[in-house]
């Protein structure tokens, strides 16, 4: 069972810490300081690799840790039902796919709440420190995009952990998926030729929520004063398309697995 309260308390803590870490940087900007920038940089920023190896501990922590935590918290979401009481739960459902979709929407609900809390706390701390809002519309748009991109990428990996856990142990499934998740951040650390780097970033699910790398017009208005280069052709629509494709694939695989996986033990 998910410890809901601890998940939401953690979201508040992450929201506070990620805001405070970035607050100095944002408030000391010569121009363009805004709550929108705080939201973009608090937990949605990684530096673009300029040298052979670029690793910023703080950025990596604020970007990766919130997602790692929620992946660990939800890693046993299916497993609980499946291994503890699968027979009793399953046989009370009309069918297996319905069970899977119920679980999916349940997870989705928690993820939306989790990332909404983090983003809301970022905004509140921005207000509390007298940061201005450059545009209400921009703030709403950026906040919504941050939440949706983070929710989608996390959902893909939560599904991966949970589906794998039906075949191998929950711990092993979590370990392998987290390893893959962390490894997937390499294009944000290792410098490659620009075309290859850009391609890897555009196709990589875990890097889609790095908002400052997107080249949408409404984001460039905020980013340009900071002298951060956007990845050409990397826009929010593209991110939703890529993550949507990964999500559809994960759901499709999940449904296939749930429809065929057998509930057995060694006792024939």
């Amino acid at each position: 069972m998910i410890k809901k309260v601890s998940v939401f308390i953690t979201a508040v803590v992450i929201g506070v810490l990620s805001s405070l870490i970035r607050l100095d940087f944002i408030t000391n900007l010569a121009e363009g300081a805004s709550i929108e920038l705080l939201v973009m940089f608090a937990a949605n920023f990684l530096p673009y690799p300029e040298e052979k190896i670029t690793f910023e501990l703080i950025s990596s922590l604020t970007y990766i840790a919130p997602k790692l935590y929620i992946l660990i918290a939800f890693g046993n979401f299916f497993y609980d039902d499946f291994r503890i009481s699968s027979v009793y739960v399953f046989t009370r459902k009309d069918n297996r796919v319905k069970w899977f979709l119920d679980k999916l929407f349940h997870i989705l609900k928690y993820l939306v709440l989790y990332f909404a809390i983090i983003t809301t706390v970022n905004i509140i701390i921005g207000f509390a420190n007298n940061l201005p809002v450059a545009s209400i519309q921009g703030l709403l748009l950026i906040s919504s995009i941050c939440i949706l991109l983070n929710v989608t990428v996390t959902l893909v990996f939560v599904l991966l952990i949970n589906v794998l856990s039906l075949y191998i142990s929950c711990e092993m499934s979590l370990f392998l998926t987290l390893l893959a998740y962390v490894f997937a951040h390499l294009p944000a650390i290792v410098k490659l030729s620009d075309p290859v780097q850009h391609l890897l970033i555009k196709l990589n699910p875990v890097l889609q929520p790095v908002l400052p790398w997107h080249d949408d017009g409404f984001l460039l208005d905020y980013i340009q004063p900071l002298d951060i280069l956007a990845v050409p052709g990397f826009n929010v629509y593209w991110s939703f398309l890529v993550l949507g494709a990964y999500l559809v694939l994960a759901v499709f695989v999940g449904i296939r697995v749930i429809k065929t996986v057998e509930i057995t033990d060694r006792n024939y």
Partner: protein
Amino acid sequence: MMAVEIYHLTKIIKGKTILDDITLELERGKIYGFFGKNASGKTMLFRAICGLIKPTRGEVRVFGKRIGVDVSFPESLGLIIENVGFWEQWTGFQNLKFLASIKNIITDEDIRAAIRRVGLDPDDKRIYGKYSLGMKQRLGIAQAIMEKPQLIVLDEPTNSLDEEGVGLVRNILLEEKGRGATILIASHIKEDIDLLCDEKFKVEAGRIYPAGSGVKDE
């Protein structure tokens, strides 16, 4: 219409034949007993009837519907399968209430009545993790019968029960039969089978033999 129809059911796992070309028809409103040694195929047969595994070959129909084709699981089913537990940190009532909420066809009072029926206290504040083996088994029986299913499948229903518990469960099963339910029991306790069942089958090496068909019953 038959309660359960099984045609040429075969299950092979990793090259080993667990169920071997089983064909069987079971009528409504009767108690059927399946006995045999460990790993003879009893539990796997029950899992196939309940839609928990896919047959390698053959077909299972419950109340006319093909399992895994028309429906994923039998539509009105209560079951206990070995080695399946409840949530340790919840009380017995909380566990059953959660399971009942999935179908949402019974009230809290129905759940309480089912718990009382197996000799447990619905207001017991102890969590499931603190239950004795016998209490766990009784709670399992309560969840199997609480929604008044038409098909009740019980794998070793009197496991871990004391003499009083065994008598109680036997009475409950006879009452359920009286209600019109079809009951399938697998047990290594021959007395359970002899006392309760209208028809008995021996399961041996994945095959089914009617009791008294010439295959040694021990």
